[in-house]
């Protein structure tokens, strides 16, 4: 059950990044409401998408099945991370302090790297399907 433990811990770590995005959304909201909305949207979907892994694997004992579910949730985080990277630096979402968009961009890059690694781990260790 080492893999299940890894899934729980790494999912917990991945939950941190959308929370950071939500904080950035709150900061950016007053300057550019659309920036706040886009951060909030991506943050909430990533947060809910990743948090739902816990009830889904709760009673699951088969490692491959845990891996398959883990792949689904990491695809959500990864793809939203890529979306964030593509959109956060757009002129439409600019705010006075550009440190905020760059911080949001960096958060997305980190979530991409981690979820990408998790996908690799799920495929190699749990023999999960990479294609959902």
């Amino acid at each position, binding site marked *: 059950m080492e893999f299940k433990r890894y899934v729980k811990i790494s999912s917990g770590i991945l939950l941190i990044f959308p929370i950071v995005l939500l904080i950035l959304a709150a900061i950016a909201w007053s300057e550019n409401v659309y920036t706040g909305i886009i951060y909030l949207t991506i943050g909430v979907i990533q947060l809910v998408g990743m948090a739902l892994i816990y009830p889904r694997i709760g009673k699951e004992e088969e490692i491959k099945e845990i891996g398959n579910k883990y792949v689904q949730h990491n695809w959500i985080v990864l793809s939203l991370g890529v*979306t964030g990277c*593509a959109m956060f630096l757009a002129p439409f979402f600019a705010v006075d302090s550009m440190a905020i968009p760059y911080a949001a961009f960096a958060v997305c890059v980190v979530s991409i790297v981690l979820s990408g690694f998790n996908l690799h781990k799920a495929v190699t260790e749990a023999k999960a399907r990479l294609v959902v």
Partner: protein
Amino acid sequence: MNKAEVWPWEDKFGDYALVPVPKKETRGLLTMFYTYTGVLACIAVLWGGATLGTQFYLKDAVLVAIVGSAILSLIGGLTAPIGGISKCSTYVNLRPAFGNIGSQVWGTVVSGIPALGWFTVQTWLFGIIVHTLFPTAPWATVFAASIWGGILMLITAYVGFRGLAFFSYLAVPFFMLLAGFGVMIGIQQGGGFAGLAGIKPTSPAPFGVGVTEVVGMYVCGAIITADICRYATKIWHGAAAWIIQLMILQVYMLSGAAMLTLVTGEANVAGALLAAGAGVGAFLMAILGQWSTNDNNIYSTSLAINIWAPIKRRTIVLIAGAVGVALAALIASVWGGAMAPFQQFLMLLGKALPAAGGVLIADFWLYRWYKGERLGERYQFQPGMKFGKVNWVGWVAAIVATILGGWIITWGIACLNALILGVVFYIIIAIACDKAGVKIDLGEHIIDKTGA
């Protein structure tokens, strides 16, 4: 006989192209939803929404999107369970309604040719996007970019670069949020929803034309939806996933793009996004997303043809792709970045394809019911099963309904007319033949254990 216990097939063509999907390979509702969404979320939907934005007031554009999506839900909602029950691809499911040769011809008509058409149109749209990004570069005219872009897409399809397939997954939320970006721009620049609602479209069109365009955009997917939902664990999974993605996500994406076009007055989505400040990152994603979708289009064409043509799949990719690139270059040279060819293409698909879907629906849901077959017994293909080479009723019903519903009848909604006529003609002629003792199948074909 339970297919989970006995699976007497040999999957010679791969991906269960001609044989039922075994139970161990089936997937749940969420997977169905992901897969459909991956197909839906592409830049072409945004171009479709932008087209609505040039033709309708906001309220009407949303209504058109809802009605068009409802018709697509109806078609897909009725074809999806066919795949869920038979566990076979559309190509195989077409056999009872059109005969064995008919399934080859109509399979190519409803899947292979539209996919080639989409490859052509998307290659041309790629040219427009590149030209929008680099308006003064000589290598980035719509004509030049269509050619080199098409060749690049063709090469990746020929080599079979699988990384691009994964990109389709990655790009799903991006395109969803890009539609959301359209909504934001619309609200910001249009003066809220009230202001947006008052903006006059630049090229008004009748309601039915808009609905047929929306249907045309995805009717090919609606008819061949069995290709995905044959993998569904439960029969209703495919239909549920299909209807949810259409009625929520497609309506939202079309409406978002329509808002963007309404406020910017720009039918060119790429130009509108750039002008509104979407940034280069969004453009690169859009280009990569379009590339991955188009790569898949030409692959689908090769699959549809490869089932009946004894030629290497890669050769088909090359030939069909070359035709697609040449056509894209032709469109670019004649129309440049004007949206007329895109609208005509959507109209053509919306008129030409629904009748074939209607015939399939009529055969499975009505004719088999009339023959007394229980739902779970329908389309249960087995080695040694006999089919007609041609089911002439299916051919006549589909052709006549397409001509009448799509081009001769001028009232109502063309795609809906063609669909209903396809159902009505097939069921009336088939039952009349049955009562009169006239055979609807010509010739005989016996399927072997490879499904051929």
